[in-house]
């Protein structure tokens, strides 16, 4: 790579970088023609539960759901409702969620606040993969559920669940903060039903 001094205008980096990015995007686009089924094994009520494990589950799930840390994934409009939710009026910290992490390795939940384009998709996929297990995804807003108003567009991913498995869907464009809080409470309920055995069998 060659970089000249400050004097010269219009010095641009190698086009190879862009090409590689393009190849990645195309590969992901071809690979995600179908939506990923939701991880809803938790819906199956009362699998063979060991009593001891049940108690352990209760402790673990309580701990997990009481301090969910979201990762930064703010592509578009919904981000500002998420920020409003985090701010004083709605105060997401009542749910132990005020620490919005810039690093995916320290986060448990991804709140997908905004439209996802194919160009952005590999990055979101990568962030999700970098998150440590157990991890959850809340699809916030119409764009996250189905592509919303841009579903017909040439560059928009019709729903985050093409890329990553989604746990809770919140309709709205954008959802009001109250709706987001409701969705978070739903996720809490979901986590409360999870079992350590299922995770082991994943």
């Amino acid at each position: 790579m060659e970089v000249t001094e400050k004097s010269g205008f219009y010095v641009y980096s190698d086009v190879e970088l862009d090409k590689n990015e393009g190849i990645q995007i195309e590969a992901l686009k071809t690979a995600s023609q179908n939506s990923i089924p939701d991880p809803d094994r938790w819906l199956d009520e009362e699998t063979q539960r060991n009593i001891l494990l049940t108690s352990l589950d209760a402790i673990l799930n309580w701990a997990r759901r009481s301090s969910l840390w979201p990762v930064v994934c703010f592509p578009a409009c919904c981000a500002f409702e998420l920020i409003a939710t985090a701010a004083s009026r709605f105060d997401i910290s009542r749910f132990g969620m005020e620490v919005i992490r810039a690093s995916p390795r320290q986060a448990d939940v991804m709140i997908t606040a905004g439209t996802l384009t194919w160009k952005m998709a590999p990055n979101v996929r990568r962030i999700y993969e970098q998150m440590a297990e157990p991890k959850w995804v809340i699809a916030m807003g119409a764009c996250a559920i189905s592509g919303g108003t841009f579903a017909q567009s040439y560059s928009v991913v019709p729903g985050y669940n093409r890329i990553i498995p989604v746990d809770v869907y919140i309709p709205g464009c954008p959802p009001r903060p109250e709706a987001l809080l409701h969705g978070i409470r739903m996720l809490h309920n979901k986590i409360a039903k999870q079992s350590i055995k299922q995770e082991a069998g994943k």
Partner: protein
Amino acid sequence: MVLKAEPFVVNLGPVHPSTHGVFRLRATLDGEVVVNIEPVIGYLHRGIEKLAEGRTYTQNIPFTDRLDYLASMSNNLAYCLAVEKLAGITVPERGDYLRVIMAELQRLASHLIAVGAFLNDCGAFMTPILYMLREREKILDHFEMVSGQRLTYAYMRIGGVSQDIPEEFLPALGKFVAGMPGYIDEYDGLIKENEIFLARTKGVGILPKDLAINISASGPVLRASGVKWDIRKADPYSVYDRFEFDIPTGTAGDCYDRYRVRVEEMRQSVRILQQAMAQIPKGKVRTEIPLTFRPPVGEAYGHVEAPKGELGFYLVSDGSIAPYRFHCRAPSLINLTALRDMMIGWKVADAIIIFGSIDICMGEVDR
């Protein structure tokens, strides 16, 4: 002794807390100094211009909400002005006043976020923006009162606004407008003479006057460089010619000037709001036009002074119910052209501040 360092490339974004969305900055650094940058955008390119060609004129109003989602009302206004120009529709006087009230409230809300996020980038993490959001919530309550939504209002219609304001709106707005100058003074008093803030913003990211015009910058970025150019005065639309207000301009064109211009614009917005509330007449709020209508063949360009700069819609009609071409002149995208000239030679930490001072909205950059 001078340590010779190898230049290396750092990717900032597209997911980064200080990039205001999905913006990517491919920066080449020499040590800590930025020697070259290349903005990479398109991570939020949703193809609105293409989609808009497949929907009727009225159905496109929700799209304009989502362009600059921090200033939906201004976007609605610009689009409706363009369509009205195209089809020759007039707006009742009360409708015009309501539009001005909404646009100015929206400018307040947008500048609050701009200033708050800018301070966030300066390192004042979270605290200032929480105060700004406090006032923004009050403005959103007013919008909710008239339109029912908090962010994407779709309040304006071609020929006016969708519905009249409820009775409690004007008293509530009066209360807010009376309190707002106090809040602005509060922030400004805390920030404008803060030693750290001055050290980090004064003289940083200077955009000279000639360059600002040459790169077609607009809005506070252009005015901070000393150009007295505001569409509300230069080419008055709606009923802006009936209000008294000043155009603040900067002298140096640095980050500090851009901050000062925004704060002063907020004060001017409050002035306009006070006058509009005093003058607002009674009557109809919209000219009734059919839900699907066909403007004559032709083209029109309607523009407004949005919080981020000159926002224009260029519409071409082929006489059908949907626009033939729907182009949005997005201020954020064009203001970004200046980024390179402002950033090179500064350190990485300054680059973030310079970027924050432009105040972009990715929804508008990428469309």
